[in-house]
């Protein structure tokens, strides 16, 4: 299922260049500059992490960096709000465990 809008009656979308990044080691494609969570959504990924206590699936929700639902591990940093963090070539995204572990 392609979720990218190819034609729109009002809007045209300026996309960055196509880049490859990984989710838990698996390569995916997105467009440079769009939020990581948006690129993941377009690639059909709905579950961004599981909640620390009850292990319930968590996805995209507010899209403006307020609700914390989309927090993931990005290039080793945990609790990154992926709905407002632009995707770049070679980024390594992981679904973090629990609250995320900060390496010393």
């Amino acid at each position: 299922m392609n979720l990218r809008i190819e034609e729109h009656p009002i809007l045209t979308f300026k996309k960055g260049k196509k880049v490859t990044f990984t989710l838990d080691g698996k390569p995916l494609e997105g467009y440079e500059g769009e939020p990581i969570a948006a690129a993941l959504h377009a690639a059909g990924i709905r579950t961004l992490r599981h909640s620390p206590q009850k292990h319930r699936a968590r996805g995209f929700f507010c899209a403006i960096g307020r609700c914390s639902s989309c927090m993931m591990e990005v290039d080793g940093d945990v609790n990154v709000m992926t709905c407002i963090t632009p995707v770049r070539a070679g980024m390594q995204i992981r679904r973090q465990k629990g609250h995320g572990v900060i390496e010393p």
Partner: protein
Amino acid sequence: MSRATEVMVVGGGPAGLSAAVVAAELGSKVLLIDDNPQVGGQLVKQTHRFFGSSARDAGIRGVTIADALTKQAHALKKQLTILNDTAAVGFYGDGEAGILSHRSFERVAFERAIVCTGAVENALNFENNDLPGIYGAGAVQTLMNVHGIRPGQKILMIGSGNIGLIVSYQLIQAGVEVVGLVEALPTIGGYLVHASKIRRLGVPIYTGHTIKQANGSEHVTGATLVRLGEGFQAIPNTEFEVPCDCICLAVGLSPLIDMFQQAGCKMVFVAELGGLVPLHDVNMRTTNPRIFTAGDASGIEEATTAILGGRIAGARATESLHGSSAKIDEIVRDANRELSSLRSGSMGDRIRWGRERVVKEIGAC
């Protein structure tokens, strides 16, 4: 690092941009802080034509209004500095704020702050409301109108206010099937002109219904709706399932008020304005004399009135620093005239009542 300004504006949406532009035009040194990569606030995702007023933006799309305001702001470079990707973290002492950008923290000394932080979307309580696939109406607009990505293939809309109606139409424009629109009240909340548009396209509108639960384990696969009777109580055995892969919540907004509370501004609960709002006078000044407000942060309304409130706040904040002028009076008079015309009519009753109450209560302080 630290910097100093006369007027600090927090938030670059329609209210903050307008406040910053007016204050800079009137000669204040202005610093505008916004935590997005570009200014424009929620206007950048609004593809519909605004009703506006004959004098302002009637028939113009939100995205176009954002472009025009941004251009005006950039043309005032000498007086107005814009910091994107920067969040105002809080106030520290009197006339000092902290801002954070790309992991560096700065202090800002200011004479006046105009807080235009906007609003956050309300959530709704129902079983499984945390499942992936349940998005706020703002998030749906961001995903589809800014990034060009559909939220899903089949979506259920909760809430029939103007946002629910307009976003439903935008979803159809983007090629998403809207499987229904759910409204707890017995009648549609928003303008009938918007409702008719989506009705003509065959979207069922379930008034007097609510969502009982979202179905699915890892993500949404459907929703169970139920009919409501007296006192919004669910009527037993009226449940039915609607298959969908997305649920959009358009159940109102609440003002984003943390900074006012932190600055010691007196707050008041006004249901008509979306909840707790900072008390402010007709000049948009709060009970903390350094702090002004405008836009949804001062009470939920819409973008055209946010622009006008921002113009008043920018003019009055400048007046409080540099004294009055005929130009300031003219800006405020024109804005007030447009505001009363926009808030006239039965749809404006609640807003007018709420606004009057805020101004009345500050008089009693």
